[in-house]
């Protein structure tokens, strides 16, 4: 999974590959089949939220981390747990609290005796050393602890003392946060937010979905999920997704979208100039392109279309737009600004 974390260190241009000779490579049909199987397993535990599951899957295939935002009780944790169950991956959950220390998640060196009775420091890995990490209520941890995730999320490694240890591959962080409860929380800093591939807003279920949730979860039985994909298969899917061709004008469209989020650019629409303090970073554009590639494959295409960019731009960019006070005062959120941006680019 070394090609996932370093977004910005890997080029986005398609590299011709011989799928038959690549170790652990898969065919596009297998890609689609695996994705469908994963989504089917998720559907067993999740009622509704199909789009949410699709986006999470896109982030995983794209090699990125996901920040799930939603009020309590919407199934964020269930989603992550179900995902872990559907994949042959190690899963760890960390409930972030204000007193959580960095070492609590990265691990620490402890004194231990060997068989000969000699004492020495031995590194005890923390919950980070897993394939799928659920960072529940991540905004409740202190910035110090939150920052401990930076290296792990960006470089898939952990440095403690003078030793740097790689994390298992693949490594995904799915963090959750409550948007309405600010007491005793520490909002994620911009650098931290930028490390997330997607920020997904978990919607409230429709009435019918609520009924189904009640029917499924209030009985004696629970849905049993089976793992349908392994870590190597997930990595192969990620490699295949990065081979999806992108035409030059599609790249240009993605660039225009990102540029239009910057209020100091002439291409920026009025909403951006008025409500945005800082626009999306180049890492945001990378996320858009990679996610669009995955989406194209999931839809059975071998090229990225404009509507792929349009579909993935909100989850990939909404947490990368930093709105100003006027936006807060006017009740304008990032999604509204992004809608204006996409409309502006579409019209140009």
């Amino acid at each position, binding site marked *: 999974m070394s090609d996932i974390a370093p977004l910005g260190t890997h080029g986005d241009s398609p590299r011709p590959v011989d*799928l038959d000779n690549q170790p652990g490579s898969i065919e596009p049909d297998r890609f689609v089949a695996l994705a469908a199987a994963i989504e089917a397993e998720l559907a067993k535990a999740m009622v509704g939220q199909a789009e949410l599951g699709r986006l999470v899957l896109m982030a995983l295939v794209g090699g990125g981390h996901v920040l799930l935002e939603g009020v309590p009780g919407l199934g964020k944790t269930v989603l992550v747990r179900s995902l872990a169950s559907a994949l042959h991956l190690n899963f760890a959950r960390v409930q972030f609290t204000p007193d959580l220390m960095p070492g609590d998640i990265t691990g620490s060196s402890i004194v231990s005796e060997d068989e000969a009775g000699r004492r020495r420091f031995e590194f005890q890995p923390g919950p980070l050393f897993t394939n799928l990490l659920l960072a529940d209520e991540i905004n409740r941890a202190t910035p110090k602890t939150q920052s401990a995730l930076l290296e792990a999320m960006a470089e898939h490694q952990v440095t403690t003392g003078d030793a740097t240890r790689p994390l298992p591959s693949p490594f995904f962080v799915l963090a959750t946060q409550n948007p309405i409860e600010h007491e005793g929380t520490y909002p994620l800093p911009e650098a931290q937010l930028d490390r997330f591939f997607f920020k997904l807003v978990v919607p409230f279920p429709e009435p019918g979905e609520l009924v189904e949730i009640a029917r499924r979860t209030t009985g004696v039985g629970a849905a049993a999920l089976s793992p349908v994909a392994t870590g190597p298969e997930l990595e192969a899917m990620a490699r295949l997704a990065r081979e999806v*061709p992108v035409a030059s004008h599609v790249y240009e469209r993605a660039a225009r979208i990102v540029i239009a989020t910057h209020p100091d650019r002439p291409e920026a629409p009025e909403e951006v100039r008025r409500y945005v303090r800082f626009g999306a970073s180049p890492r945001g554009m990378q996320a858009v392109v990679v996610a669009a590639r995955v989406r194209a494959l999931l839809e059975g295409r071998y090229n990225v279309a404009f509507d792929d960019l349009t579909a993935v731009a909100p989850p990939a960019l909404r947490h990368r737009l930093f709105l100003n006070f006027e936006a807060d005062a006017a009740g304008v959120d990032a999604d509204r600004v992004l809608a204006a941006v996409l409309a502006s680019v579409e019209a140009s």
Partner: protein
Amino acid sequence: MQVVFRRWPVEPAWVPMLAMVAAAVLVAVAGSWRARPSMAEVARLADVRLGGRERLFTALELAQGGGGLSLLQQADAEAWAASADPRQVSRRRLPRRALGIAVAGIALTAGLALVPNGALDRLRAARADEALREAGAEEIASIATEVARAGAGSETPKRRALVRELRTAEMALRAAPTNAAAVAALSRTQAGLRALVQPTGTGAGDAAAAAGDQLARTAASEGAGKALAAAGASSGAGLGQMTAELASAEPGGSAAVASQLAQAAEEAADPSVAEQLRKAAEEAAAGRSEAAQAALDEAERRADQADADRAAEELSSLGRSLPGLSAAEQAELAEALSKASVAAGAQPELAQTLANAATALAEEGQMGEAAAALEAAAGVARGLGAAGDLDTDAARANDGLQSIKDALLAKSEGAGAGSGQGCGEGQADESASAMDHAGRHGLNRDVFGGGASVQTTPRSLPQRQAEACPEFESPSGDGLGQGVTVGPGAGGFGSQGSGEGGGPGQAQGPGSGQGGAEGHRGGGGIGGGAEGRLAGRPGAPTERVYVPGGGGTGRSQALPSGTGDQGADASLVPYEQVYAEYRADALTQTDRQLMPERLRGLLRDYFDGDNQ
């Protein structure tokens, strides 16, 4: 284009229209070629219009290389392209604005095409006029060629002048910008022909005949005199009678003429004349009247020439015989030559040579000069035959010119319509002048309009006066004369004007009456034609002009008393008040080229004479 055609008409219009369409197509093709979309643009458009979701453009970029998913992508793009429905592109909304502009342009063009194009009509008329003038020029050229050919071998300066006049007329007709100018040029040529022919016309023949008669009275010159008289009398005149009979013969009645011709051929002394007469008889018998006419004309010409040659030979012989004459005979001959010279006054050249011969013969030692003078007279006599031919050719040429003029005038008549009216009224011995004025006025209308004055209700005025005013004579004014002439003139360049003049006149004893005339100036040129501006000067329909009786003859009737009634002046405006304007207007009209020279002279004489 239609707008341009209204300013600068072109015909046939389809040529520039086709050229414009071709140019437009060419520009469109060139523009399309220059603006043709690249493959990438086509791919992008197809992706957008057909919902290709960037398949084609991506495949186009990947066509330069790639593998793995690139190959799959290209295959996917090809499969999609095969299943795409291009009709979706054509179903896109029409460019209404461009379509509206195009429809409006077409409608405007069609509308303008339905609106009559006056400029085009004028162009067509001008071209028709030009074609008419060109045809006239060709006809004149043909006449000139015939005249030149007819004079081959016996060419005289006058024949050369005649041909030159015709050639000049031909060139003038080709260069004439309008029919009016062409008619003017033809009129000048006709005047030139008259000036050319008149000195050696019928008067010349008569003069030669008279001179011959004088010479025939003297024994020494009897032969020369008879021959000269015969040449002057033109022996071909008899043949001319047969020519007239041949021309007037009914379709089945040419046999009698043929018989006469055959008999004349038998009697003809000159072999070439006899040959032509036989030919004419054969043609007449065969019913080919035109060929017979031509042969008869040729026979007449040769007969005249033979007579002239014989007269020339006799005069030459007389000159050679002078040394053998006695002094008395010489004196008698000198006297005869002198009388012949006087008799040949109408033929100045002949008169001069005969006078020279008489003078030389009367003086001693001038025998050689007398012989030379007679030889010169022989040359003049020889030219009498050619002169007869020249008259015929000139008349033929004049007829041709007149027919061309008539055609040009007739063409111009259709271009407009107008009307004019004039009348004159007079009393006393000057009464006929009213008619004169009426005729002149009508004639003016004719001139202005270029039409012909036709006497419709002649009462006492001879038709000749109504038709040809220049020939008006001084009023006899003896007795009572009364005449009315009404001469509507029709035609005109751009204006079909009609003039009408009426002039009752009363005449009684010479100088005892007063003349008055009243003429209503016609409102000429109220033409509806496009060229109405060329019509006669539009006059006020109610304008009245007083013109004094200036001439003309009415039918006279003697009155018992020497004094007549006072002439009634029905005028409203004194003549003196309008005469200057009338004179200036009339003289201005004379400056128009259209007016024949003889009519100009008539008007100038009228206003410059005693009538002022």
